[in-house]
Every structure is written in C-alpha cells, then in structure tokens.
C-alpha cells in the first residue's frame, strides 16, 4: 500500500510538475550590445507553438538575409503594437545561421529597433521538424503561424499589413 501511495505521489509530481512549469528553456543565449537572443532547438521551441492560454500568437519565421521577410517585418511590428492590448503576441523566429547571430541578427535588431520578441531556432535537421510546424509547409520562408486556444492557421507567403490584419481578424474573437 505504501508503495502504491509513493508511486501515485511520484506520478502526480511528474504530471503536475510539468504542467505548472511554463518556461521554455533555450539551448543557448547570445548577447551583444545589450541585446540578448535566446536560441532553441525544435524540441524546446515546440512549446511556443502549443501554448494554451488566452493569447493569440502570431509566429513569423524569417531571417535577416531573406528579402521578402525583411520587407514584411514592419507589418508584424505594427500588428504587435496595434494589438498588444488585445491579447495578441507577435513572435519573430529567426532562422539565421548560428554563427551570424552576433554579426548580423543582433545588429539588424538594433538598426530596425525591433519591438516584437525575437528568438532564434537552431535545429539543422529541418526535415524532422518542418511538418511539425505545419504539414503543408514546404520549408520556404517567410512563413507564419497564427494560433490561439480554438484556431490555428499557417501561411507560406508574404503579407501586406492589411492582409496580415485581415487574417488575424479571422481567428480573434
């Protein structure tokens, strides 16, 4: 009997322990000129794609070298500003090469004064994780996921601000 209680206790600790820790741990952090960027492998990053709270997340996959991505970044920034009081959060996921974080990514963030949160995804075996983001993603960027507790959408395309806002409006209540 004691043993069963002990096992149940362990089980409860494991299950509830996991549920209560909502922090996603990076594999590495970079800092340069006062800016810090956290880098995640896909296993840890996956938590950002599956948050179960009141917020609507707009997750944009981009890189500093990707022209159409850089072109649409201001629209994601504007969306983040305009909807910050409406439980909408924009997350910019950089796919820059790890060795370019300090030389390209952080200087770019400073130059453009990016306000939305920027994180870095570092997991070279893309074939293993692209379909976990969206089954219909071929792997080209820019690509964007929008989701909340009730709805999830994926886009492998570029946006104007109006297009982006219209898509957001289809999933926020």
């Amino acid at each position, binding site marked *: 009997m004691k043993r069963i209680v002990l096992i149940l206790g362990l089980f409860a600790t494991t299950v509830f322990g996991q549920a209560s820790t909502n922090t996603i741990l990076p594999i590495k952090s970079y800092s340069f000129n006062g800016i810090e960027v956290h880098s995640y492998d896909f296993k840890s990053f996956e938590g950002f794609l599956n948050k179960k709270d009141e917020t609507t997340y707009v997750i944009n996959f981009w890189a500093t*070298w990707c022209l159409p991505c850089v072109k649409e970044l201001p629209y994601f920034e504007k969306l983040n500003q305009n909807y910050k009081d409406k439980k909408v959060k924009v997350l910019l996921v950089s796919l820059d090469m790890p060795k370019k974080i300090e030389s390209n990514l952080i200087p770019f963030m400073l130059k453009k004064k990016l306000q939305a949160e920027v994180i870095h995804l570092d997991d*070279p075996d*893309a*074939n*293993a994780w*692209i*379909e976990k983001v969206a089954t219909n993603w*071929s*792997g080209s960027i*820019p690509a964007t996921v929008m989701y909340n507790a009730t709805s999830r959408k994926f886009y492998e395309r570029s946006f104007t601000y109006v297009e982006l806002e219209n898509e957001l409006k289809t999933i926020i209540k």
Partner: protein
Amino acid sequence: MKTIKFLFGALLFVTLSAFTWNNFNAGYKVGDVATDFSLKNVDNKKVSLNDYKDAKGFIVVFTCNHCPYAIAYEDRIIALDKKYKALGYPVIAINPNNPAVQPKDSFDLMKERAKEKGFTFPYLFDEGQKIYPQYGATKTPHVYLLQKTKEGNIVKYIGAIDDNSNDETAVKTKYVENAVNSLLEGKEIEVKTTKAIGCSIKA
C-alpha cells in the same frame, strides 16, 4: 450595365480560382514524368535533358546565387556532380529566380558565380520563370532526382540534399546520394521526399 458587372465579376472569379489552383496544386510528385526544357547555360548555349544521350537520369537542382542555403550547398552540389556524372546521373542546376526581384540572381552574376566556384555542371537560367512552377519547386536549393525511362524522365526523389545545411561535417543522412545509389543498385529508394528550410523562389 448589370450584365457587364456580372461578367466582370465572373471573369475575376475564374481568374482568381485559376491562380489559386496553380499555386496549390501545381508541381510533380514522385512517379510523375518531368518535363524537358531548353534553357540558357552560363556559356550562352541552350541545354536540354534530351542532349544527354548516355545519361541514366539527372540530379536537377533549383538553386541560385544569393541564398545562404544555396551557397552553403555549392561545394556539396559540385561533389555530387563529380561523383555521379560518371555513373550516369549528372547535376543540372537551374536558377529559378527573377532578377527583377532579386538582382543578385541575374544571368551575368550566374556566370560570375559559376566561374568563381568552378561549377562542373550546367547552371541554367529559367528565363521568364516557366520551368520551376511545372516542377513545383518552392525554394532554393530544391532537388528533383529523375530517372530516364522509355516513358520519359520519371521523378524519383524530391527534397533536400542532406540533413544539415549549416554544417557539412555534422551530416548524418545524405538523402540525394542514398537515392541515387538505390537507383544505381536497382533498389527501391527508402526516403523519397524530404523537406528543408530554403529561400522562397522570387518570381
């Protein structure tokens, strides 16, 4: 006037539908017959798959000058050509990008890059961006492995070159090599499609 409006509306609908259809359903799947083409090489001569009478097939790679992923794979593409040309599977590289959108992918800069890197394979320009949509390439680099048969060039593998774009020394699985080796040995290809992050094609 109402009729005109209606007709215009109908026309718009048809146009939009066709556009959507093209965007989401175009492109080859494994087993399809791939189209031949006649595209300008960096030596100004036209190249077609049909020119290669002795080839057993082709490693068609959509790639370009500017994309960091394409650049990261240049040496590996050269190595593929060196290894498999002699075995009947030469590399045919095609730049699908429109230089009006991405000036670094102009024909002149293709010539420069091919010379700098010493490309051992044709590097063709998809002028007018007509071939890549038929294949269904969405990004660079994007590989289509073709096997020549009496019915035409059959698509046998679509996807990435290997499983690590950042670091060649950390590669665990060489998808294209494994696929070509299987064809050479007359075996079934184990992994027929893969995905990788790449630069979207600029049309």
